[in-house]
């Protein structure tokens, strides 16, 4: 079996938010929703203060609480471990949003910035907004899919997933610091497994939530 996973070496992150924006343009997420931001926090007191960075995104959990909570079946976990949101099926109960410990689900509210449904797409003020309204369903929840469309494209076209830029999640491709590695967690010889092995295993966020994430970290502050 394949279980796609991402390893993030947090010690490498420079906080540039390239991933944040690459994800947004790849997935054309609603303007107010950020599927893969870099969170930051201050530590210490002047002059021994610093700013820490941590890239976050959907954890694609083996025991995904969002899938469990979703009443409509819009949220599902694929056989390859990717947790998908079918926005056409979603009813907008947002149960997933309260169930996810990572805040990885994003509700597409109609915020009144764009013409009403049915208006020509050109009426949207900017390319990102226009495509957000074409690609996403208002009133539904959307999320990071590990760029499943790119992975599927790669598999269909014989491109190496995690290596070829058209077959790798956008946040991984863009990262100037090479913080992120994407590959098959079930394959002990894969890039991700080897990287984890080389660092004594990975850490996860919110271990208390026992969600068994596929997004794992090394070098967590």
């Amino acid at each position, binding site marked *: 079996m394949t279980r796609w996973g991402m390893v993030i070496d947090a*010690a*490498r*992150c*420079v*906080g*540039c*938010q*390239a991933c*944040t*924006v*690459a994800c*947004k*343009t*790849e997935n*054309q997420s609603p*303007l*107010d929703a*950020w599927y893969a*931001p870099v969170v*930051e926090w*201050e530590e*210490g*007191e*002047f*002059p021994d*203060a*610093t*700013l*820490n*960075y941590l890239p976050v995104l959907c954890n694609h959990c083996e025991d995904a609480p969002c899938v469990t909570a979703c009443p409509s079946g819009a949220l599902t976990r694929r056989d390859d471990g990717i947790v998908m949101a079918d926005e056409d099926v979603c009813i907008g109960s947002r149960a997933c949003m309260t169930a996810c410990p990572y805040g990885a689900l994003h509700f597409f509210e109609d915020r009144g910035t764009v013409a009403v449904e049915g208006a020509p797409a050109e009426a949207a*003020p*900017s*390319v*990102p*907004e*226009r*495509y957000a309204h074409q690609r996403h369903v208002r009133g539904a929840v959307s999320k990071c899919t590990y760029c499943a469309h790119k992975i599927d494209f790669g598999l269909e076209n014989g491109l190496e997933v995690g290596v070829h*830029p*058209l077959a790798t999640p956008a946040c991984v*491709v*863009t*990262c*100037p*610091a*090479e*913080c992120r590695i994407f590959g098959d967690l079930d394959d002990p010889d894969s890039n991700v497994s080897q990287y984890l092995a080389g660092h004594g295993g990975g850490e996860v966020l919110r271990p208390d939530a026992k969600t068994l994430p596929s997004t794992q970290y090394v070098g967590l502050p």
Partner: protein
Amino acid sequence: METVLGARTGTAYGDGWVRSACTICMNRCGILAHVNDDEVVDKILGDPDNPHNHGRTCAKGDAGFEGLTDPDRITTPLRRTNPDKGVGVDPGWVPISWDEALDEIAGHLRDTIADDPEKILYTSFDIYHLRGALAASWVTGLGMPGYSTWSAAIFCGNNVHGILYMNQNAFESNPDPIYSRYILNFGAQFGSVVHYDTMHSTHELSVRRSDVRMVSVDPVCSSAAAVADEWVPIRPGTDAALILGMVDQLINELGIYDAEFLKNSTNAAYLVGTDGRYLRDPRTGKPLVWDEANGPQPFDAGTANAALTGTFDVDGAEARPGFQMLADHVRSYTPEYVESITTVPAETVRRLAREFGEAACIGETITVDGVELPYRPATVAWYRGLSAHKHSMLNGMAIILLPTLIGGIDVPGGLLGDPWGLIGKVKDLEYTSKASDDGLISQGFIGGGRVGGLYPPRPTGPPKTTEMWELLPCAPYGTVFSLLNSEQPELFGAPPFPSMMINFNSNMMKSSGPPEVVERFIKRIPFVAAIAKRFEETTLMADIVLPDVHYLERMTPLVYQHLASGDSRHSAYGAKPVVQSSIEGPVAGEPFVDAMQIYLELLKRADRLPQFNEAFNNIAKMRDPYRLDPDASYSYFEICDRWLRNTLGDDKGLDWHLSDGLWTEDKTVEQKFPRPFFDARAQVYCEFMIDTKQNLENTVEELGIPWETDDYQPLPDWKPGPAYERTAPHDLFVTNMKVPNHALSHTHKNSILSTLSNRHNDLKSVWINPKTADARGISHGDLVQIETSGGRKQTATARVTQLVHPEVLATQGCGGGWSSGSSGDEVNFNALLNIDVEHIDFVSGALDCAIAADVRTVRSGRGGAR
């Protein structure tokens, strides 16, 4: 020529992907842009084949397609009908034809050239044009001495370019991202995505992060300081004291310096007399060095062991080597004295010097490509942080001492230069510099732009323009004097004011001085034309506006020709239209792809094409059969085709550019690390400053105008800037910093990046240390007003944070604005600047950006909100 635009098969990435170049910042990364079935660009990737950025992009580059479909795009030439100009004044635009617009601008050009071509002011920071031969040829064709990068020329390279040309024959320099093991950032952000060579260096440093120690000396914990091993907060404008304290430690306490390098590759051994000038060989006029065995010898007499230290008697005259002069000079910069100036603890001063010196590995070598080279893996980075100060040039002279002392220049691990003085020529780059008669690296006037070097200094004379170029013999730019002359016309005897301005990709109103100052300057110019994609604050001041193309619609070859330093590959590539602009251009029937098409039309209508063709031949180093016939008229496409073939080979013309467009080549070891392979020397003791000062003083005395010449000195000092002696209530410094998701000011209207800003690094905020906030009763989230000692004001939201020096108010970028799409409530740092004699460096033309200020709560905010 039938041009093939929108060729979408030039990459291995399938249909819809076009290889091009990003224009958002100076890095000009290689990109692949995707066009969807609606003919809309919807995705940008880094070009994986490009050795400059290795397939990576930053947040700005990822979001770059935004703006292509901006409803505010200017689509036709426009004429102003309202004679009144200013902030908030409706220009009353009416559309006019290209012919009408071009003829009118060409008429002004003709008249001004007939009067004095120096009265044309061309302001542009268009990085595609500036780094190629295009901008230089255009202004040279008009008979102007150069263009003005305007805002960049006020803030950025003032103490950078000349200093680097002096000591390493380079326009820019960066730490070696591959071999460096100790990197000291002084107010710079190398290693983060806020610098040059960002994608390459960030990647290299990140994957070797545990092997590299990075230290950031900065009043603010910038994004680079955040990822550094250590943040050393410092009082703004005092870096030179810390640097000279480190130099004192290295020389006088630790004895750590690369004596071999100093003797053979610098002027450190040149003997200096009591008048500060070199002692010269009476016969040859060459500077002397002291040979331990044979006494005084000309520097180039093959002396193996010239003395660096000591005091010598040369025919009755007392002489010390320049190095000894430096050693004596810096002795007063004790760690305790440095602490009192900088707030950096004396122990930290000692430790930083020791760390830097020990990390330099003096005496060690490394083998690269089979060649044994000096290995100096300790280095520094600086740009605006040290440059935008009153005593900017002295800061630059101080900082360059650190890499020079350890021999860490253009060797593995050291400070690596980018020798782009050779515009338009990728192959056969001359990496070595011709030496002056004194054996020194000698570059002088750089390229086709109005960018001056430091050594040899230019001759002085009466100023021909408001830039006072002729009174700035060592400055790279004089732009700030244009604003000063506009504010105080009689101060320097009213030098000739511009008769006309053409503005292109430089939002002067927002990105240089306070808007009201720049507004007064522009209003005094009788005719202003602007070329713009959409209305910016400066466009709104124009008499005639011409449309421009978005960078994803542009075709500009050779915009990138080598910036990645050190152990990386050469590359050359350019921009090509990812989509074809629907805007009608200046040439009927020709796709609109670049503002150069406008310039060619203007040159033609102003009868200056022959001069342009000649200039282009010279600047682009054109050879037969590609040279332009001065009497012929070429389309932009033909010029590009010839330029490409001339530069990259006959098979690499426009067709190649449009279908492939990426040229790469391995570097030789001499190209990677040139310093060990040439003889011209860097300078430790700037003897030329003494005569320069004297010449300048003579000139200004003749002119009868006031001028400051105190900073023309052969060895650097720290001197207090105008805000150093602060008095209550203006007892804080307000400064600004760069953020990784904006470049200059022109990304502020990108809806993705501005939304990100609002969420993340709020451009409306000012960072205040909790101590300072407490003392002034300011709470996190309060709306506060910053007021400078000059009475200028900006409102901001208080971000109370430990990440800033208690004496500092830190703002981000230069936000705000009043053109459509601007966020008026962002902080515009430039609106706080003082354009006066006290804040300008008369050596480098820098403007001091550490302003004395007060801050008070205007309206209480919600605590905890951010």
